[in-house]
């Protein structure tokens, strides 16, 4: 059994191959376009643009990940972005309401929209595909109706500042000091979390990566964060939207990984029946996941409208597809129960860098769509291929420690009556 730590490490890597794989792919894409654009991609200005351009997709991708984890889909987010943006613009301009009132009102509107869709999906049990396809039409129509087919522009500066503003500036040697400090704090926090959870895993004899690997991972993440902060500090510093994103990513990661609420979302997606029989209120969980998606759609609507400085009838078209693609590229499983927030972010960044890079080198929209489509397909195919390999490998690795071969080996013999004439659970 001397090889066991090694096999365990490879199993660990294999099991996470999707996430590592996509992170590696993201780096490769960045390097590729950095070369192709002759260094334009990673200029401080362009990195800032990248964040701004992709912020709303990132926000949507986080919510979409939760929806997909529960085993559903939301096709309506693009239309909801447009509708909440339009209503916000009307509240700001026609009604003259202040931004501090409009922002919560818009988020509440998003929550109501989410509750509407969640009601049909969770309680009436209409498939989410149908409910949100209907929502896509309904809210697009509602957008056209409230805007009367015309755009509203310009918008008050307060909303614009929220969507395209930066952290207040304190300049040192031509660099944006708050950004650098935030970067350092962020890097320290991430490293601290990594080592704390490693220490915990060690204490409880859970499988852990070798020390060298953790050191390497910590070093790389810290350096990446610092470089990122340094690049941004050369321009205007961290955009406010960037700060919002960091908060969302950290918050949602925490909820999904470390709270009972997050665990319940995974359980409902993993097996709704098993979750129901474990005392989890599956319908309520599904309902709240859709409410959450609505709120995040409204947030994305505010950011998008603010950045565009206009509410337009066509806003948000195809956003749903970008968000869904990001979630799947980031490792979500269409069957539900699998997916991480960080994965969705990586997926969204892959799409975002592809978009931005291809635009920079002057590739047409035709090629952009084509390439993005193939990337999505390949990413998911890689995942399925990899999962099959991991399952086989893991199954056969299993040997009871120090025991006989009983209960181990290929689990071909596992008899599993999948059905009985009698009763199935119907929650």
């Amino acid at each position, binding site marked *: 059994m001397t090889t066991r730590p090694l096999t365990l490490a490879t199993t660990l890597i294999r099991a996470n191959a999707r996430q590592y794989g996509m992170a590696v792919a993201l780096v490769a894409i960045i390097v590729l376009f950095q070369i192709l654009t002759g260094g334009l991609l990673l200029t401080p200005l362009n990195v800032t643009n990248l964040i701004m351009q992709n912020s709303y997709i990132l926000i949507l991708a986080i919510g979409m990940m939760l929806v997909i984890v529960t085993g559903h889909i939301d096709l309506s987010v693009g239309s909801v972005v447009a509708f909440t943006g339009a209503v916000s613009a009307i509240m700001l301009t026609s009604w003259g309401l202040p931004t501090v009132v409009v922002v919560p009102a818009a988020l509440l509107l998003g929550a109501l929209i989410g509750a509407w869709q969640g009601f049909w999906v969770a309680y009436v049990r209409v498939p989410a595909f149908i409910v949100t396809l209907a929502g896509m039409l309904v809210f697009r129509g509602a957008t056209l109706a409230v805007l009367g087919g015309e755009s509203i522009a310009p918008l008050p500066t307060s909303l614009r500042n929220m969507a395209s503003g930066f952290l207040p500036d304190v300049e040192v040697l031509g660099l944006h000091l708050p950004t650098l400090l935030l970067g350092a704090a962020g890097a320290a926090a991430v490293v601290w979390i990594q080592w704390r959870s490693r220490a915990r895993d060690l204490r409880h004899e859970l499988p852990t990566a070798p020390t060298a690997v953790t050191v390497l991972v910590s070093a790389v993440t810290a350096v990446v964060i610092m470089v990122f902060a340094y690049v941004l500090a050369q321009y205007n510093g961290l955009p406010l939207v960037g700060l919002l994103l960091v908060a969302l990513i950290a918050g949602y990661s925490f909820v999904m990984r470390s*709270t*009972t609420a997050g665990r319940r979302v995974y359980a409902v997606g993993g097996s709704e029946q098993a979750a129901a029989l474990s005392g989890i209120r599956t319908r309520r969980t599904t309902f709240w996941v859709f409410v959450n998606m609505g709120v995040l759609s409204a947030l994305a609507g505010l950011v998008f409208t603010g950045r565009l400085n206009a509410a337009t009838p066509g806003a948000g078209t195809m956003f749903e597809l970008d968000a869904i693609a990001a979630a799947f590229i980031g490792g979500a499983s269409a069957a539900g129960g699998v997916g991480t927030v960080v994965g969705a972010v990586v997926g969204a960044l892959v799409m975002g860098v592809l978009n931005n890079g291809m635009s920079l080198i002057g590739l047409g929209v035709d090629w952009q769509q084509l390439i993005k489509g193939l990337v999505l397909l390949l990413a998911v195919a890689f995942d399925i291929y990899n999962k099959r390999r991991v399952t086989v490998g893991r199954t056969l*690795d299993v040997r009871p420690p120090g025991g006989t071969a009983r209960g181990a080996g290929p689990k071909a013999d*596992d008899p599993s009556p999948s059905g009985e004439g*009698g009763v199935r659970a119907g929650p």
Partner: protein
Amino acid sequence: MSETQTRPAPTGRPLLLMRDIRKEFPGVRALDGVSLSVGHGSVHALMGENGAGKSTLMKVLSGVHPAGSYDGEILVDGDPCAFAGVADSERAGIAIIHQELALVPQLSVGENIFLGHERARRGVVDWGATHAEARALLRRVGLDEAPTTPVSALSVGAQQLVEIAKALAKRVRLLILDEPTSALTEVESDRLLDLLLGLRDEGVTCILISHKLGEVVRVSDEITILRDGRAVETLAVERGEDGTPSVDEDRIIRGMVGRDLDQRYPERVGEIGGTRFEVRDWTVAHPTQPGRLMVDGVGLTVRRGEVVGLAGLMGAGRTEFAMNLFGRSYGRRVRGSLTKDGEELDTGTVAAAIRGGVAYVPEDRKTLGLILDDDIRHNTTMAALDRVSSRGVLDPGLEAVEAARMSERMRVRSHGTTQAVRTLSGGNQQKVVLGKWLFTRPELLILDEPTRGIDVGAKYEIYLIVRRLAAEGACVLFISSELPELLGMCDRILTLCEGRITGEVPGEEADQETLMRLMTRTGDQDRTDPRSPR
């Protein structure tokens, strides 16, 4: 033995000869030189614990593992065969019926029987021929159903017969059945086994994989026992004048585990105390047909430290009762009350039931008990997340410790608690489900077919766990279709028929005949029909 064989049997030459079959998966030798010889017109049982290699051997034979992926020879009627896939083996007259039935529920019986080789002329289905032939096949397997009945309307037992009819339609010579009776009631099992004997006499050879020793002894002509990827022995079963077989169950167990298993059920220990849980007049209506009572006025008591058995045929309402009691997970309650220590207990939702100290281990562990893709740790804590969290925030360290402790207590064989439960064997999965429910600290544990489809060794371990729980003072309600198991494990057995309690027998005094009689007390013709009332 018979004239109806598709090809005359050359005397002395077996129908099937598998010689020195070796099959390796990365890291594991699943089959280590297995040889198997199956004679014409016989029933050949394949026995062995989970992981012994039975299914792998049958997958090699049926072409699921194609030629080239294993070493060794397969001879059918003396001709060497190299099957590239299932279609090849079917052409050679070999058909396998898996546990998970391969029928399309929405299609009719006739359509299913001829699925893939439709009775058709230039792509146009000949419904006349389809139905006529299907009717003949259904008569042959003894199933009284119209060919137009949708498969979804049939019980599992009847579906099993449709599967056999489907195999017969392909002019099968060698029929492989993988655990065919695991989801059947005793009556249905008996019919199926009689059918196998009938088919054998018509010249159809059967290979039977089963964990049920009684049925294997009853129908087999030969029994091959596999252990750790090797065929350890083949026993020929001779039947005496009075039909007594020359091989008994203990002999087979000895071969399977490689040692004598002196006891199949652990000793009763501990004292039985006073009444803790009492169910009165529990009545449950069908979820969509409000007038139809699935459980009718069930009353029972469970005392401290007592294991109470619940016996009944399929459709008797055992699972319906248990699931309705547990948070109304099935149907609608019409009336009835549950008391714990004399006080009314609310089990209106699953969460309330768990809080009240009730736990239900469902019969279908894969879809109702576990999240297969998740690991042991998360599955263990799923029903009691509050025990490993405070104010909604999980404590991963505590969770890991608790899951490891439970896993050890249940003797789950695994790499560790981060292993996905999908990759565990059936017995170990069942132990994880048990652990998950014990983690909720239940006072009333309802077990629904807790040992279905798991091997002898794991069964014994589960019995031990149940015994220990009872000795610690827990109340156990034990639902099972296997009467010997109920007799071996329960202090008291209640019988259920058509939703009503029809009898109560103390464990020591009961025997299978008594139970069977009580389970069929309102026994009209309907009872023996494989189509259970749904």
